[in-house]
């Protein structure tokens, strides 16, 4: 009884993670949640895993648990990739704003010859020094 109890704690944590991720990516969040619920069911009702395993052409319920675990890890990896992508989008927006603000500042501070002496904005180099 200790085994399923110990495994239930991280499974519930992963389920919570999946539910929270629904807001960010619905298909991935729902898939993680459903797969975790299935894994919890297999943990507490091993005979259910065996029945489904036979129906799916897998030899034993243990194999099904492993397949479910691999699927879960794959989904979490995919989710991390999507999260990284979101971070990249934020970096993109920030970079764009700095570039446009830098160009604007250069124009605003241009000297009588029309050439700006401003080379950096917030420590970011606007033009490579030649």
């Amino acid at each position, binding site marked *: 009884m200790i085994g399923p109890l110990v495994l239930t704690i991280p499974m519930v944590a992963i389920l919570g993670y999946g539910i929270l991720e629904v807001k960010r990516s619905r298909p991935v969040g729902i898939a993680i949640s459903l797969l975790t619920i299935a894994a919890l069911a297999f943990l507490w009702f091993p005979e259910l895993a065996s029945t489904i395993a036979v129906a799916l052409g897998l030899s034993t319920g243990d194999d099904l648990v492993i397949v479910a675990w691999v699927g879960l890890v794959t989904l979490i990896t995919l989710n991390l990739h999507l999260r990284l992508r979101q971070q990249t989008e934020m970096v993109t927006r920030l970079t*764009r704003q700095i570039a446009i603000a830098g160009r604007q500042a250069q124009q605003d501070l241009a000297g009588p010859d029309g050439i700006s002496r401003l080379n950096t904005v917030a420590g970011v*180099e606007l033009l490579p020094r030649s």
Partner: protein
Amino acid sequence: MAATTVPAHVARPLVPVFETPAIQPSLDRVVVAVPALNEAPYISRVVADVIHAGFECVVIDDGSTDETSAIARRAGASVVRHSITLGQGGALQTGIDWAPARGADVIVTFDADGQHRAADIAALLQGLRSQDADFALGSRFLGAAVNMPRLRRFLLRGAIWFTRFETGMNVTDTHNGLRAMTRRGAMTLALRQNGMAHASEILHEIARSQLTWVEVPVTIDYSAETLAKGQSGLDFVAILVDLLMGRLAR
């Protein structure tokens, strides 16, 4: 018989109050946005050609480590410089954000490697005007693709069919960087694909916006340099993966 003169305000054609005049895009100020990454050998000629054709040019330097920015500025372009490299899609969106904010009525996107012809810009503008469209998309398959390798042609054909299926737009070309858009069209674009998948994303966004578009024959010149920097077969796979991941992230 005494000559009668018609006052100017009467001579003008009258528009009945119940008739709304067709909305013509104001094409007064055209800005050509050129995303560039380490294009020092070509950028001077590209900027000079665009300016010689009578258009303003903004080069979006995507974090080049060579003299691209300085050369472009000397050639007469405005330069907006990314502090880090984002990718062509990221640079293009910077140009699309920057130009309307500076009063551009039309934004033209133009590659920095010299494969586009500045003379085609006028044809794109004519396409916008004559069709009252918000997007004019250059098509090398309606125009000409000089020295285009067979593999590239084959891959592009596949990409065109995919685009038609995915967007419902009956386009004859895809992933052509030469296009023009009105300010209204530009405001509908918010590209999230920083890499090469942005070209497919633009078509997807045009389809979603339900604004009018037209294709215009243009010429693409392939040289050893442009082919070396261009897309390979593997890039097409990367584009598909990027598009899929982009959808999942929404």
